[in-house]
């Protein structure tokens, strides 16, 4: 699912490197100045600004081996800084865009979906196109599950699930995601509508539940023993 995005990232990075062949020999400050005008996610810019030549080449090889399917061990990306930067981008910026889409978006026909996605992501870079394809051609569950797996493969991040009785406005979703991402770095909090909750919300973190739903309250009230 991420191949097109990773290919786009590789393409952009290699394009940038071909324009600045001495980039990796520069100091971090100079690199940041050069990267300022480069259309690239902030997390990857930060990675490029602080990596060294050796690690960069290793990461490129790993990325290529993944894209060509020669990597035999999926765990080889665990802890890798490049993939961490990709994950950071996906779990923050991209997840924010994902949250802006209403639930009904996933029920729209493909053409309409693409129109909505075009409105959401205005850029027309290769990376943006890859992201648009990702959003237009997959359901929320597919994207969320994949990102969760990717997050697990790159770091031992926490599994966070937020259940609500209704779809909430993007601003609140963003607030919740930001707060949870801060609390559980590099995790990908999933949002799920569960009408049984009636009100409030329920948060699962690595299987532990914090239940603040009305359903839980009603259950609590109705489980009180009258005779005791």
């Amino acid at each position, binding site marked *: 699912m991420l191949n097109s995005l990773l290919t786009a990232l590789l393409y952009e990075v290699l394009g940038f490197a071909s324009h600045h062949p001495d980039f990796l020999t520069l100091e971090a400050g100079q690199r940041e100045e050069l990267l300022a005008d480069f259309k690239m996610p902030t997390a990857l810019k930060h990675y490029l600004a602080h990596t060294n030549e050796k690690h960069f080449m290793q990461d490129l090889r790993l990325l290529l081996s993944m894209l060509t399917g020669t990597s035999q061990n999926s765990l080889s990306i665990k802890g890798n800084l490049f993939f961490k930067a990709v994950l950071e981008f996906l779990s923050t910026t991209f997840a924010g865009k994902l949250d802006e889409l209403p639930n009904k978006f996933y029920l729209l026909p493909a053409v309409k979906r693409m129109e909505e996605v075009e409105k959401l992501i205005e850029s027309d870079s290769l990376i943006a196109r890859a992201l648009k394809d990702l959003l237009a051609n997959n359901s929320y569950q597919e994207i969320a599950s994949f990102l969760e797996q990717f997050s697990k493969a790159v770091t031992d991040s926490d599994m966070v699930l937020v259940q609500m009785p209704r779809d*909430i406005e993007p601003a609140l979703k963003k607030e919740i995601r930001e707060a949870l991402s801060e609390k559980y770095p590099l995790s990908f909090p999933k949002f799920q509508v569960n009408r049984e909750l009636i009100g409030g919300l329920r948060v699962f973190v690595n299987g532990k539940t914090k239940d603040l739903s009305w359903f839980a309250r009603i259950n609590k009230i109705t489980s009180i023993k009258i005779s005791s």
Partner: protein
Amino acid sequence: MEGLSSLGIDPLSILIYIVNTGLLIVVLVYVLYKPILKFLDSRRDRIRESVEEAQILKEELTKKAEEARAAEAHFEAQLKKETENLRKFGEEKRAQMEAEMATLRTEMLRKANEEIEVRKNELIKEVEETLLQLMKKVVLDTVKNRVPEEVVMESIRDAWKQYK
């Protein structure tokens, strides 16, 4: 003598008569009197023996009767004692049975009370559960279908604030 002869009495004949009578007496004594006496003596002895035997029998009878009376009295006493023992035994048994019955009755009452208590608690529990389920159903139905959308949204915001 001649006078006697004139009267027709012959002295010889008288003598002869006397000798005859004497002879008769001797014969009678030896032939009749002695056997009769002997017979009478033996009869008297038999009667005396019979009387003595009767006396002995009478004494024995008296003794037996006394023994029988004593035995009867002993038996009566024994019977009385046995009857008394039996009555006491009966009383003890009755008391024991009454005690056992009382214990059994108490135990049965206790068990019955326990059973009633358990059943009562079960019934209360069942009623409670039914009531709670009903309450839950009513509450769930009410909050599911009758709570405005904005209230639900507000509840999500509040829950999030609480979570933070």
